C-alpha cells in the first residue's frame, strides 16, 4: 500500500517536473517566435535616390530580405500567397541585402530562388544594404507597399510570428491595400533576422534592432 502510494507520488512529481520543464521551454520558444524585429525610420514617400525602378501605373510592393534567414521563408511564402491574389496588379520587388564584405554568391540561396519563382516578383540585390537603409528596413521580411503616387500605404511583416506561415494581419492589410480596400491596420511587426549587423546591439535577441 505504502509502496503503491510512493509510486504515485513519484509519478506525479516527475510529471510535474516534466510539465514545468516543458512549459519553460515552450515559453522561451514562444517568446522568441513572438518577439518582433526592429524597424528603422520609414519614409512616408518613395525615397529619392532609390535605384528600385518604381512604376506609376501600379502600386509597388517592396520586401527586403536576408538571403539566408530561415524566418524569411515564411515571409516569401506569404508573399507568394499575396502575389497569387494580385498578380498583374502590383509591381513587386524583393531586395536581398548583401552586407558589406559579403561574397559574390552571398545571395545565391534557396530563398532567392523561391522569390524569383513567384510570378510578378522581381528579385534584386541590395549591395551594402543601402537601399534597405533608404526604406528604413532593418529586419528581414519587412514589406512596404507604395501606391501609384509613391505614397507609403503599408509597412511591416506579413507573418504572424517568426517564421510562421499562415494568414496574418500583415498579409490581409497588403491584399486590402492592393485591392484598394480599407486596411484594418497599416503597420505590423516584422519577424525575421537583422538585415545588417548593428554596431551596438543592446538586446539579447538576435534579430532585434
Amino acid at each position, binding site marked *: 500500500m505504502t509502496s503503491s502510494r510512493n509510486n504515485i507520488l513519484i509519478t506525479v512529481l516527475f510529471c510535474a517536473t516534466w510539465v514545468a520543464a516543458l512549459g519553460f521551454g515552450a515559453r522561451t520558444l514562444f517568446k522568441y517566435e513572438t518577439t518582433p524585429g526592429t524597424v528603422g525610420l520609414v519614409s512616408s514617400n518613395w525615397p529619392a535616390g532609390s535605384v528600385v525602378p518604381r512604376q506609376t501605373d501600379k502600386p509597388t510592393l517592396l520586401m527586403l530580405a536576408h538571403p539566408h534567414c530561415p524566418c524569411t521563408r515564411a515571409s516569401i511564402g506569404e508573399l507568394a500567397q499575396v502575389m497569387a491574389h494580385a498578380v498583374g496588379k502590383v509591381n513587386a520587388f524583393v531586395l536581398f541585402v548583401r552586407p558589406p564584405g559579403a561574397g559574390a554568391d552571398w545571395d545565391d540561396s534557396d530563398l532567392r530562388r523561391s522569390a524569383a519563382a513567384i510570378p510578378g516578383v522581381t528579385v534584386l540585390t541590395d549591395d551594402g544594404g543601402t537601399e534597405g537603409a533608404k526604406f528604413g528596413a532593418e529586419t528581414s521580411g519587412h514589406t512596404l507597399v507604395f501606391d501609384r503616387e509613391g505614397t507609403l500605404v503599408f509597412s511591416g511583416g506579413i507573418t*504572424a*510570428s517568426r517564421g510562421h506561415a499562415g494568414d496574418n494581419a500583415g498579409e490581409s492589410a497588403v491584399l486590402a491595400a492592393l485591392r484598394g480596400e480599407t486596411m484594418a491596420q497599416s503597420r505590423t511587426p516584422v519577424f525575421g533576422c537583422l538585415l545588417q549587423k548593428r554596431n551596438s546591439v543592446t538586446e539579447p535577441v538576435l534579430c532585434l534592432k
Partner: protein
Amino acid sequence: MFEIASLVGASESTGDRAEELFQQHRRQIFRQTDQLFARLMLFQWVACIVIALVVSPRTWDGASSQVHIHVWSAILIGGAISLFPVWMTRVWPGAVATRYVIAVAQMLMSALLIALTGGRIETHFHVFGSLVVLSFYRDWRVLVPATVVVALDHFLRGVYLPYSVYGVLSASPWRSIEHAGWVIFENVFLVISCFRSIREMRFIANRTAALEASDQRSRQLFDDAPIGMAVVALDNQQFKQVNARFAEMVGYSEQELMTRTPLDITHPEDLADSQRLVKEMLGGTERCCVEKRYLRKSGDILWATRTACIIRDKDGKARDFLIMVEDITERKRAEEAVREGQRKLEAALETNQLIMDNSQDVICTIDESGRFVTINEASETMWGFSPNELIGRRYMELVHPDDRPATEKAAAEILESGKLADFVNRYVRKDGSVVSVLWSASWSATKKKLFCVAHDVTQRTRIEAALRDAKEEADRANHAKSEFLSRMSHELRTPLNAILGFGQLLERQNPTAQQRARVAHIMSAGRHLLNLINEVLDISRIEAGHLQLSVEPVAVAEVLDEALDLMRPLAADRSMQLSVDAQLEKDLHILADRQRLKQVLLNLLTNAVKYTAIGGRIGVSVQQSGPTRTRVVITDTGAGIASEMLARLFTPFDRLGVEQSGVEGTGLGLALCQRLMQAMAGDIGVTSTVGKGSAFWIELPAADSPLKALPRNRTATMDDTSTTEVGRILYIEDNLSNLTLVEQMLAEQPNIELLTAMQGGLGLDLARQHLPDLILLDLHLPDLPGHEVLARLRQDKLTRDIPVVVISADATARQIKRLMAAGARTYLTKPLDIGEFFRVIDETMRNRNRHLEAAVA
C-alpha cells in the same frame, strides 16, 4: 443437481479465465504499444533535430550567424518531451500513467514539430497520425489527454498569435471549428475502433478460455484416465506424452519414457507383430487393437490390450499415434490358469482312461436302476462280457443266484451309508464259470450313480480257504502240543518227584562217601531235568500267549538286592567280587512283573558267575536310558563272546559251543529272558569283548513310586482317605513297594492293625493264626499263585468267612469274574486309588462286623 452446479462452476471459472486472459492481452498491448512509442519518441526526437538543422540551422545578423534557436529547441525541448516517457516505459511499462504521459508527449511532439516547421499545414497531419498511433493502445481514454493538449496548444496559439488560422482570431472563425471538428471526427472513429477492438479482444479471450478449458479437460482425461495412454510421434516413433497410469503400468518414469519408443518396451516375441502394425498405420490404417506384451522395467511381463489410432493436425495430416493400453495381465493369468486346469483335466482324463483301459479291475458306474452306465475293458477278462454287452444291462443278472440276497442287501445299505467296502460276491461268467469279486463302491446322491471297482478275488478266496484250513490244522496241532506238554510236564514231574524225593531221603540216611557222590549225581541230574522242564514250559506259555504277568511299579534296588542276596553265596564260592552301583537310588521304579524281573536278573547273574573265571569281578549298575527308560547292566570279566556269535546268543538250546566246557546249562535261559523282557515291553542286549568280558543289559519303562500317590499332610479327620472301622487286616504281597504303600496308608488309622506276608504260604499261616477281619491278596506271589491261596483260604474252616480283596495289576474281566466266582469279595487294580481303597476297606469291614454282631446276637 451436482452436474448443473459443476457446469455453473466451470462456466464461472471459464469467465474468470476469460477475464484474466483479456486483461493479460490488454497488458501485453499496453506494454507493446509503450515500446512502440518509446522507439517512436526517440525517432521523432532525432527527426526534430534533423528538421531543425535542415529548415532553420542558423539565425543571421547581417553577415554573421549563429545556431538557430530551433536547433536548440529540437535538442532540448524535443529531448525533454521524448526522454521522460521513454524512461517511464522502462520503469512502469503498461502503467496508466505511462500511457497518459506518452499521449501528452506525443501531442507535444506534434506541437514542437509544427513550431519547427513554421506552422506548415502538412505538419498538422502529425497530430492526426499521433491520435491514430495512440489508438493502438485500444484505450479510448488515452485520446482524452492527447486531445486536450491539442486543444490547449491551438487555444494558446490563438490567444498569442492573432490572425493565426489556429487562433481564435483567425482569418476565418469557422476554420478553427472545422479544425477541431476534424480532430473530433477522428477521435469518434478511433474511440469506436477502440471499443470494437476491446470487443474482439474479449471474444478472443472467451474463446481462448473455452479452448483452454476444453484442453484442460482433455488433459485431465488423459492424465487421470484409468487406462494407460500415450502419444507417440509418427516420425521418430518416440513417446511424446504419457499419462501416469501408463508409466505406472510399465514401471518407467515419464521422463524415462520420453527417450524411448513403444518398441523399446515391447516383448521380443511381439516385436515383429508390433512393427507390422506400425507399418500398417503408417500406410493409412486409422485404428488397430491388439493384445500384446510389454516388458516392465523390472523385467516382468505386462499383458495389455493396446488400441492405437492416428492423430491428425488441422490440415488432416497424420502427426502422431494415440495409444491406449489396458492391463490384462490378471485376465491372462486367469486364462492361463484355466488352460492349465484344462491341460491337467485332460491329463487326468487321459490317465483315468489309461487306468480304465489297463486296469485288471472292473471300473464301472451303475445307475439307480442297477444298470451299467460305463464300464472298462476289464469286464471282458473278468466276466467274459465286453463293455458294449454290459452297458444298459442289470448287474444283478450276472450275480450268482446264491449271492443275490446278500448283494441286494449290500445294494440297499450302500444307498443309506454311501459307501461299500470289502464286499465279496460271486458272478457267473459268460462261459458259465463262477468268479468271486471284491467290491468297493460309493454312491453319489447328486449324480444318482454308483461308482464301483470290482477286483477278481477268485484266486485269493481259494488261498484264504486253504489258509483257514491250514490254521485250523495248526490250531489243532498247537492244542495237541499243549496237551502234550501238559501231559509231558505231568508225566515227567511225577517220576522226578520220586527221584528227587527219595534222593533227599538217601542224603539224610548217612550214606557212605561213594553213595553220597552217587546220590549227588542223581539229585543234580534231577534238578537239571526239572529246570529244563520249567523253562521249556515257560517258553511254551509265552509263545502260546498264556503267560500271565502282573506288570506294576517295582523298586529296582529291592529286586536287585533280593537277586544279589541269592547270588552272593555262589559268588563267594568262586572267590568273585560282586559289586553294586553305589549311586543306585532306592526309590527308582520300573514297570515290570516282579517275579519275572527277578527271574531274568537271576538268570543273567547266574550266567555271569558261571562263565567268569574264579576270582573275577561282576558289577551291577542302573542307568537312565532316555527320559522314560531305565537300564540295568550286569558286567563281568569273563572270556567274552565273539561278535559273530552274538546273533545266536538268544537262540534256544544254542550254547555257543560251551557244551564241553563243563559248565552246566540248558541253553534256554537267555532265550527265556529275551521272551520275558519282550512280554514286559522291555528289551535285552549284550556288548562283549573277547578276553575282557561282557555286559548284559535289560531295559524297561521307568515308573513313579506308588508312594507318590499318597496324599501329603494327611490329617486324622474323617474323609474319603480314612476308615472308622476297627479291625485287623492281612496283606499278602511280595512287592515291597506295594507293602510299604499300604503300610503308610494305614499307619494313620489307629483302629486298624496291619499284618503282612510276602509269600503265599506265610500268608495262609498268618490267616489261620490271627484270623484277620480282612485279607488283601496279591495274585502273583513267589511260592503260590494268588488264586491258589484264595482257594486254600476258602477251603479252610477257620478262614472260609474272612473277606478277601484281590489286589493285582492283571485285571482282565475274565479273571475278575473267575476270582469273584472263587470267593473273592471284590477286586482292586494297581495302581491303587486311595479313595477307592479306603471305601472298599470301610465297606467290607463294616459288613464283616455286622455279620459277626448278628452271629453273636
